[in-house]
């Protein structure tokens, strides 16, 4: 669908943008729901398959890595109430997807949701954006920053989330992160001393690191690289080296930041329909 935007005022552009967004909002995201449960089930099944059914550990490692890379986005849909809004019939499903999908990533839903809302409110603010520390000069630097942010006394990454939660008056939610981490480390250390260190390392510990790096790169660094504060400046459209599927739809993340309730699967179409408006607004659209 093409829009004649020439001569439109700012408010007319906004109305046209909102009309496009409206058409793509409130579509039930079946894919995200199926994705969430299937992904978790596959990751959980790897453990008995490797321990008891002879699945080679290296195959388990590859699948587990993909599982953890895939684990964040269904929760992200839930964080934005895309599956079901508060008070609606399927709200339980929204919350279930939110809580379950990031278990392999060891990221509690409430921590993810509250800090992500802060990211949306304060994108690129060095003091208030919990994801600000993913800023980097180049792709390799972004990968390095992600690793640095995971060091014990780092100030960025998940370590920045505690400060963000304290700032918004939800230090109680930090406890979710504490509990998740204690359980995670207790499980992998127990497995390791029972003689299953390699299995723990290759089915959870290392895939979690690789997955976190991937998520940090494609869901945080790449769409915001080169941006600044402002509705039409904080996120860019870009051509990902791994394509739209390989980057999990992040080429069109700009649409998500403008209209967070559009399901992930609909953002490419919404982008194509909005493109002229985004260009008129001066958005960065690179290689698309």
């Amino acid at each position: 669908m093409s829009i004649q935007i020439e001569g439109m005022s700012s408010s007319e552009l906004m109305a046209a943008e909102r009309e496009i967004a409206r058409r793509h909002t409130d579509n039930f995201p079946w894919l995200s729901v199926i994705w969430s449960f299937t992904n978790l089930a596959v990751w959980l099944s790897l453990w008995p398959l490797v321990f008891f059914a002879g699945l080679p550990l290296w195959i388990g490692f590859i699948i587990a890595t993909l599982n953890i890379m895939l684990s964040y986005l269904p929760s992200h849909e839930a964080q934005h109430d895309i599956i079901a809004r508060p008070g609606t019939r399927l709200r339980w499903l929204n919350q279930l997807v939110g809580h379950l999908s990031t278990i392999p990533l060891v990221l509690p839903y409430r921590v993810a949701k509250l800090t992500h809302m802060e990211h949306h409110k304060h994108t690129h603010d060095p003091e208030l954006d919990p994801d600000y520390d993913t800023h980097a000069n180049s792709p390799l630097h972004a990968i390095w920053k992600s690793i640095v942010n995971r060091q014990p006394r780092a100030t960025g990454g998940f370590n920045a989330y505690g400060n963000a939660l304290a700032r918004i008056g939800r230090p109680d939610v930090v406890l979710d992160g504490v509990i998740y981490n204690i359980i995670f480390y207790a499980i992998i250390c127990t497995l390791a001393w029972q003689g299953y260190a390699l299995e723990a390392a290759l089915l959870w510990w290392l895939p979690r690191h690789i997955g976190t790096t991937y998520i940090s790169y494609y869901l945080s660094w790449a769409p915001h690289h080169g941006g600044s504060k402002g509705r039409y400046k904080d996120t860019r459209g870009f051509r990902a080296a791994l394509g739209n599927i390989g980057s999990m739809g992040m080429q069109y993340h700009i649409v998500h930041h403008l209209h967070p309730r559009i399901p992930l699967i609909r953002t490419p179409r919404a982008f194509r329909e909005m493109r002229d408006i985004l260009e008129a607004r001066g958005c960065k659209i690179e290689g698309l």
Partner: protein
Amino acid sequence: MEQKQPLAFRIIGTIFYLGPLIFAFGFIAPLTSQLLSMWGYEVIAGVPAVGVGLFVALVWGSWAQWRGKWI
């Protein structure tokens, strides 16, 4: 006057503060030991693989505990 934190909070705080050492002895030591055994090094210079794992954990874990980073 500063209020004293509950015991559970202090214990959790200590666990997280000592995270690098706990992770080193809890995970890196057995992982190193099992990797060495898998590659056929059950004993190195008279030290069993588990001893080597504990030594690696002590050195690397202490360094990470001191510097606040693994690498």
